[in-house]
C-alpha cells in the first residue's frame, strides 16, 4: 500500500488537465466542483433575494443597478408582477436545491466522507463524477429557464397545482417544464451521491472504525442520505404526474376533471419536510465536529446524538401534513400531525443540550470555525423555537403563509446552510486547499454576518405576527399593511448589508487559497482521520492506510501529555 502511495505525485502529473480537474474521479476534486457550483448558484440566488427585497421595501420603483435587464422581464429596473412571482420561486428553488444541497452534501459530504472513514476514495468514483455533471446540467437548465419565452417558473418553489399544472394561471409554460426537468436531474444526481455515500460508509471503513466510532459528520451525512433516498421517490412520482398533466393532458391534479390538487401537496411535503433535515443535518454535523476540537473536550453524549438523529430522521417522515393545516385536508389528520411535529423537537433538544454540555467548562478557543459553530447554535435555537408555534395547528391557522413562516424557515435553513456551511468552510479549508484562512477577516465576516442576518429576519417575524401574507407583489396596496413598510425597508437595508458582509469572506477565500499561510496536516489538533492525511490530500488520500483504535473525540485525557489523541494512533 505504501509503495503505491509513494507513486502518487508522479502519477498525478501524468493525468491530463481535463482528467484531473474537469472529469476527475477523485472525490476531493469532485467535492470542490460541487463547492464552486454551489457558490456560483448562491450568487444567482442572492441576486434574486436582492430583487425581491427591493420590491418589498420600495414596491414598483426601479431597482438600483438593474436597469440593464431587458423587457419584458423588467422595465427600466422596475419589477413587473409576473417576474416577481418567478423571482420568489427561483430564489427558493436555487437556494435549497442548488446551493444548500451541493455545498453541504455535494461538497463537504464528498470531500469528507472517504477521508473521515479512512478510504482512498468513494465506492463508485465514476458514479460520483456523473453525479456532479448531472447536477451541473440541472443548474444550467434552471438558469436557462430565465431566458425562454414566458420566463422562469413562477408557481412558488413548492410548485402547487393548479398554478404549476396549467399555463393559464401564470403565463409560464416552458419555464415550469424546465423547472421540473431541472429538479428531476438534481434528484438523479443526489441519488447517485446517496448510493455512493452509503456504500462507502458501509463497506470502506478503515480497520477498527466501528459504526459507533464514526465522526458525527459522517453519521449526519449518511442519515441525510437515507432520508433523501427514501423521501424522494414519492416526489419523483408526483413530478411524473405533474409532467403528464402539463404535457399529455391528464387530470391528476385538475379538480374540475376529478383530480386532486392536495395529492401533490402530500407527495411534495412527504419529501419536503425530510428535505429540511437533509440540508440541516450536515450543518449540524460540522458544528458537532468543531465544538469538541475548540473546547478540547470529548463530545457529550455521542450515542444519544446518534440515536436522536436517527429518531429525528424517522419522525421526519410522519410530520409532512403540518404544511397543510389550512389546505382543506381531512381535519382528523390535524391533531396527529400536530403531535408528531411537536414530538420532533425532542431529539433536536437532546442534540442541542449535548452541544451545550460539550462546551461546559471547556477550554474554549474562539477561532473563526468555533465562532460560526456557536452562531449556528444561536440561530438554530431561534428557528427551532419558532417552529413549535407553527407545528401547533391552532397557532398555525393564524400564522400560516405569513412572513412569520418566512422568518422561521430562514432561521432554520440559514443556521444550517449559511452558518453551518461557513463553520465547515473555515474548519476544513486548510485540508481542502492546504492553506490557512485569515483569522481577522474571518472574525469580521462572522460578526457582520451574525448581526445583519438577525436584522433582516427579526422584522419579518413582526410583519408575520401583524398578519402580512407572503408572496404579495405589493403588500402596501392593503391599508392594514401600510404600517409594515418601515419594517420591510429596515429588513431590505439589512439584507443588502448582509450581502456586502460576504465580501470579506470571498476575498479571504480566494486570497488564502493562493497566498494563505501553508497549513500542516493537523492545524487544529483534531482527532478525526482526515487530519492524518496530507493537506491537501493527494489522489488516494493517505500515505498508509490508517487503522482506528478509538472514538473520534478523545480530548484532554488525563493520562496523556497532549490534549488530543488521533483516531489512528494506538494508545
Amino acid at each position: 500500500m505504501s509503495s503505491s502511495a509513494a507513486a502518487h505525485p508522479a502519477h498525478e502529473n501524468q493525468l491530463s488537465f481535463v482528467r484531473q480537474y474537469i472529469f476527475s474521479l477523485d472525490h476531493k476534486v469532485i467535492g470542490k466542483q460541487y463547492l464552486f457550483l454551489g457558490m456560483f448558484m448562491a450568487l444567482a440566488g442572492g441576486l434574486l433575494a436582492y430583487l425581491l427585497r427591493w420590491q418589498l421595501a420600495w414596491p414598483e420603483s426601479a431597482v438600483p443597478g438593474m436597469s440593464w435587464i431587458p423587457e419584458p422581464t423588467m422595465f427600466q429596473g422596475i419589477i413587473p408582477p409576473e417576474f416577481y412571482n418567478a423571482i420568489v420561486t427561483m430564489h427558493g428553488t436555487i437556494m435549497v436545491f442548488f446551493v444548500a444541497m451541493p455545498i453541504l452534501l455535494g461538497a463537504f459530504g464528498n470531500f469528507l466522507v472517504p477521508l473521515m472513514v479512512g478510504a482512498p476514495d468513494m465506492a463508485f468514483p465514476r458514479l460520483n463524477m456523473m453525479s456532479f455533471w448531472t447536477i451541473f446540467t440541472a443548474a444550467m437548465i434552471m438558469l436557462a429557464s430565465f431566458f425562454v419565452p414566458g420566463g422562469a417558473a413562477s408557481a412558488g418553489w413548492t410548485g402547487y397545482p393548479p398554478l404549476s399544472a396549467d399555463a393559464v394561471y401564470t403565463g409560464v409554460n416552458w419555464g415550469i417544464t424546465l423547472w421540473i426537468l431541472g429538479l428531476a436531474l438534481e434528484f438523479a444526481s443526489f441519488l447517485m451521491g446517496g448510493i455512493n455515500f452509503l456504500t462507502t460508509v458501509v463497506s470502506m471503513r478503515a480497520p477498527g472504525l466501528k459504526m459507533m466510532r464514526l465522526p458525527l459528520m459522517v453519521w449526519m451525512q449518511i442519515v441525510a442520505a437515507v432520508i433523501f433516498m427514501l423521501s424522494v421517490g414519492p416526489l419523483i412520482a408526483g413530478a411524473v404526474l405533474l409532467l403528464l398533466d402539463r404535457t399529455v393532458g391528464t387530470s391528476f391534479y385538475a379538480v374540475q376533471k376529478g383530480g386532486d390538487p392536495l395529492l401533490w401537496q402530500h407527495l411534495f411535503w412527504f419529501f419536503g419536510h425530510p428535505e429540511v433535515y437533509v440540508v440541516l443535518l450536515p450543518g449540524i454535523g460540522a458544528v458537532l465536529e468543531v465544538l469538541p476540537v475548540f473546547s478540547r473536550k470529548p463530545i457529550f453524549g455521542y450515542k444519544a446524538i446518534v440515536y436522536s438523529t436517527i429518531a429525528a430522521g424517522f419522525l421526519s417522515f410522519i410530520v409532512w401534513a403540518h404544511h397543510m393545516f389550512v389546505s382543506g385536508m381531512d381535519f382528523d389528520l390535524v391533531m396527529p400531525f400536530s403531535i408528531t411535529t411537536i414530538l420532533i423537537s425532542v431529539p433536536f433538544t437532546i442534540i442541542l443540550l449535548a452541544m451545550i454540555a460539550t462546551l461546559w467548562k471547556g477550554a474554549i478557543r474562539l477561532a473563526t470555525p468555533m465562532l460560526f459553530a456557536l452562531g449556528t447554535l444561536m440561530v438554530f435555537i431561534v428557528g427551532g423555537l419558532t417552529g413549535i408555534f407553527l407545528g401547533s395547528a391552532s397557532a398555525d391557522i393564524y400564522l400560516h403563509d405569513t412572513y412569520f413562516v418566512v422568518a422561521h424557515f430562514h432561521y432554520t435553513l440559514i443556521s444550517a446552510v449559511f452558518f453551518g456551511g461557513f463553520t465547515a468552510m473555515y474548519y476544513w479549508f486548510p485540508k481542502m486547499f492546504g492553506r490557512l484562512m485569515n483569522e481577522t477577516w474571518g472574525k469580521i465576516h462572522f460578526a457582520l454576518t451574525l448581526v445583519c442576518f438577525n436584522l433582516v429576519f427579526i422584522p419579518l417575524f413582526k410583519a408575520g405576527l401583524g398578519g402580512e401574507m407572503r408572496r404579495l407583489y405589493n403588500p402596501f396596496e392593503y391599508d392594514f399593511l401600510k404600517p409594515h413598510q418601515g419594517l420591510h425597508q429596515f429588513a431590505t437595508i439589512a439584507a443588502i448589508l448582509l450581502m456586502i458582509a460576504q465580501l470579506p469572506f470571498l476575498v479571504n477565500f480566494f486570497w488564502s487559497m493562493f497566498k494563505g499561510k501553508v497549513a500542516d496536516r493537523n492545524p487544529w489538533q483534531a482527532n478525526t482521520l482526515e487530519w492524518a492525511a496530507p493537506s491537501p490530500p493527494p489522489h488516494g488520500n493517505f500515505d498508509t492506510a490508517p487503522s482506528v483504535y478509538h472514538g473520534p473525540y478523545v480530548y484532554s485525557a488525563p493520562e496523556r501529555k497532549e490534549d488530543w489523541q488521533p483516531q489512528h494512533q494506538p494508545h
Partner: protein
Amino acid sequence: MENTISEKLLAKSNGTLSHARPQKNGSLPTVELSINRSLLGLLIFLGTEAMFFAGLISAFLILKAGSAVWPPVDQPRLPVAVTALNTLVLLASGYTMHRAVRGARSGNQSALTNWLALTGVLGTIFLGVQGVEWGRLLSYGLTFTSSNYGATFYTLIGAHGLHVLAAVLVLMVVFIRALQKRYSVKNHDGLVLCQIYWYFVVGIWPVLYGLVYLS
C-alpha cells in the same frame, strides 16, 4: 491504461467487502461484510425505486378513493383473466432466473445460457401481451386522458412496463456476456446484479396486479 490510483486502491478491496489486512495489533476489530459492493449500491437504489412505486400507488389509491364510481361506468374493464396468465409468465421468469444463477454457481455454462434465454423470452412475452392488451384498451376508449381511471392505469402499469423493458435490456447484455463465458463459479457479480433487479420487477408486479386489476 486509464486506471487511476484510486481505482487501483479500490480494486484491492473489491470483490468482497473485506478490509481484513495484516495487523500488528491482533485484537483490532475489522469491518467485514460478505456482500458485494455493487450489490449494496443496487439494493440502496432499489429502496428508492420501491418508494417511487409507493408514491404512484398512493396517488392511485387517493384518486380512486376520491371518485364516486370506480371504474367509471363508461370506461372499458381491464383484462383480468389474460393478465392473470401473464402474471404467471412473469413469475415463471423469476424461477428461470433463479435456475440460471444456480447454473453459474455450479459452473454449468449451458444451463446458465439456456435458462437466461428462457428468462428473456418470458420477459418479452410478458411485455408483448401487455402491449397487445394496451392496444385493445386504447381501441375501446381507455386512454391517458379519457379519465383518471385510464390515467392512473397507464401511469402505474406503464412505469412497471418500462422497468420490465429495462430489465430485459440488461438481461440481453448479461446473456451476451454469458455466451462469452465471462461468468465463472467464483466471479459472476454482474449476473447477480441482473438477478436482483429482475426479482424486483417480478416481485412488485403481483402487488400492482392486485391493486389495479382486481379492485
